[in-house]
């Protein structure tokens, strides 16, 4: 299974990963449109990106969510009817929506953000066992 692994102990909360992600998928620099979310706290930052656990897949009434051959949960826009049951079902709060869009979005472990991280706080990792 391929997923984006987060290492909050390394994170410096520079938010460049959010910029990279939202620029790639929404062509804007907007953390509300990023598939990875960094929240600053009094201690180490909270990092939120999909773990590809697949729980959301079960919740989808139209089978718009599926797990691809690499173990990544994908959203099929053509089948999605924007009910957001998956957002509520996600145990890590990693399925997102944004104003003006119907289809929710999530990290697909593309790795674009990892190339921009200056602190080695995010890595694409593969777990062959799962």
């Amino acid at each position, binding site marked *: 299974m391929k997923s984006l692994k987060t290492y909050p102990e390394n994170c410096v909360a520079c938010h460049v990963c959010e910029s990279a992600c939202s620029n790639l998928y929404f062509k804007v620099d907007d953390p509300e449109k990023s598939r990875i979310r960094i929240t600053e706290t009094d201690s180490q930052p909270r990092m939120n990106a999909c773990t590809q656990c697949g729980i959301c897949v*079960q*919740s*989808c*009434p*139209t*089978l718009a969510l599926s797990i691809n051959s690499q173990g990544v949960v994908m959203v099929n826009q053509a089948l*999605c*009817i*924007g*009910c*957001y*049951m998956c*957002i*509520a*079902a996600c145990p890590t709060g990693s399925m997102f*929506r944004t*104003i003006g869009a*119907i*289809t929710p979005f999530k990290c697909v472990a593309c790795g674009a953000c990892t190339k921009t991280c200056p602190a080695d706080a995010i890595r694409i990792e593969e777990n062959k066992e799962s």
Partner: protein
Amino acid sequence: MTDRRILAEFSYELKPVIKGYNRRTLYIDLGGKKIESKPVSDMMIDKFVGGKGFDLYLMWHGVKDDTKWNDPENELCIAFGPLCGNTSYPGSGKSIVTTISPLTGIPVDCNVGGHFGPYAKFSGWDAIEIQGKADEEVIVYIDGDAGKVKIMSAPDKETNSHILAENLINEFAENPDKRQFVSVVSAGQGAENVLISCLNFSFWDKRRKVARLKQAGRGGTGTVLRDKKLKALVVKYSGLKGDTNNPVDLETLQKTGLKLHKEIEEGDATQCRMREVGTAHLVEIMNDYDLLPVKNFKYGQSDEASSLSSGEFKKLFTQGLPDGCWFGCSLSCCKAVDGFVPRTGPYKGQTVSVDGPEYETVGGCGSNLCIWDPKDVVELNFYCDTYGIDTISFGTSCAFAMECYEYGILNKERTGGIDLTWGNADGVFELIHQMARGEGFGVIVGQGVKRMKEVFARNYNADPKLLQDIGMEAKGLEFSQYLSKESLAQQGGYTFALKGPQHDEAWLIFMDMVNNRIPTFEDKAEALHYFPMFRTWFGLQGLCKLPWNDIEPANNAETDEPAKVPEHVQNYVDIYKAITGKPMDKHELIRQSERVYNFQKVFCMRMGKGRRSDDIPPYRAVGPVTEEEYLSRQERYDSLLQSKQGIDPAGKPTAEKMSLLREYREDQYQQLIDAVYKRKGWTPEGIPTIEHLQSIGMDLPEVIEVVKRYL
């Protein structure tokens, strides 16, 4: 592929829904093979809103004062409401069916899930109005992708819904991957022979790869469908998106829906467990509170009821699937028993998928008949559905017949050899298969309790007074499955219900009997005003009631009026405004309902009912009819005699105490009627006053004209 002839065809312009409305309805005359589009006026939207309101308005102008259920001009209307079909807020996929009921002779309304409603709405129609009788078996096909409506011949061999729905879905879907875009309304063979019928609304379950069926259950709607020689309605619509209902404020709609999704995600597992077991969770609660019907509502409890508890059904339900009957319903209460193999009837030995059973079916086909094997209940559920028979009326009718059997009013000679001893599931199976075959004593049971009372008194010399006391019907409709004996408010909740005794107008037993929150007549009258009006609103909008109070916000108990679930009422206000763009608050919400509710009341009067005498329950719903019932709750009843009537029960024979209790309870009920009618703006005879109709804005000339006949 079935060889069909096109008997009539109508093309229409496809247009987007705007703010929840199409502003047109579809009229089909099966006799004249006429199909046309009717405009929706501003007046219709202002006064009737949509859904049940549109149904009743169209029906009013389609039928005559003396129209009977099987007259050609009787209409079968299916409407959807402005909020219907949105995919954001749980419980938003309901159709509302109305017709002049074969059981009651007045309008019946049913609120039903499945995909038909939203697809028919997005195909371009706010309501479908079907009139006339075809001269051969037909189907009506609405192609919402192409903008065509067709009446087509129906040489289909199958009538029973679990097969017919699947066949039609396969026939009209472009390919197997698109079966989810087709939905079917049908009724089975039973609906051709009995009055206690229902309609099945399908939704294609992509995971199970079966057509699931939801029921427009009450009042005999399936019998009307089959009397019109209409085998099915089919709709195809492939364009569903998250904004197809075209709301003015998608963001608010989505945020409100998401808030409820999260509430359900967090709360359902510890509240009603709707996602785990559906409404079956009520079985053990009702048994604990002495409210589960046993032996035709004689008792409210049984030691054997644990065998029908939700835990037992959970073992049969396939778990972990999103079992919503419309997209976006995270409450997902409809459960299915997959891989079920019936032990009786024409499908014996075959593998079928069965929807439910829901609480009402467990009560009706299980505890009330003393059938304690959950698999027998599942099998009765399966056959009721596929034959197009209402599990509630079926259960209550069979329970009545079994009690008559117990008393010797019926015997094997009179039932054609069927043993109707309590708990004899085989006898009950034989009844339902006879209903489907149109033969034997099953057909008499299938006419419902009201007609059985007449037959048993006439043919078997049974005591009409006893039959009246134990026959659990009012207005001609069978009671649904809660014991109302110890809750005066619920006696009213059932019996004031316009269509007949169904719990969807008011369920007040806990407020009244358990928590004593509405002690005075005025309190009860207020509850019997507010809740029926609030619940009517779901039927105007195309919504389901369950996400209102079968999930509650964590802090609901701390609010001023927890029974109303104030946060959810506000959700409804918010999503109504978000979709329609019209002003709304919690007061106008009630006012919208009040207009349609009073219109329906006057409609009942126009059809010859709606009188005070129609709102009187059988005594079984009010108190103990038999000595054994009295003795089963002797402590309660003796203590009531003392505390409420000031009568010392000591030394009095049971028969005398029963008589005293009955006198008191019947008097209390009459006082309740007075209080409720006054609160509703009606005369003591139950006639809405002209002043009241004017004050709520339901003073249309045709309404006033009917009311004047009664004043």
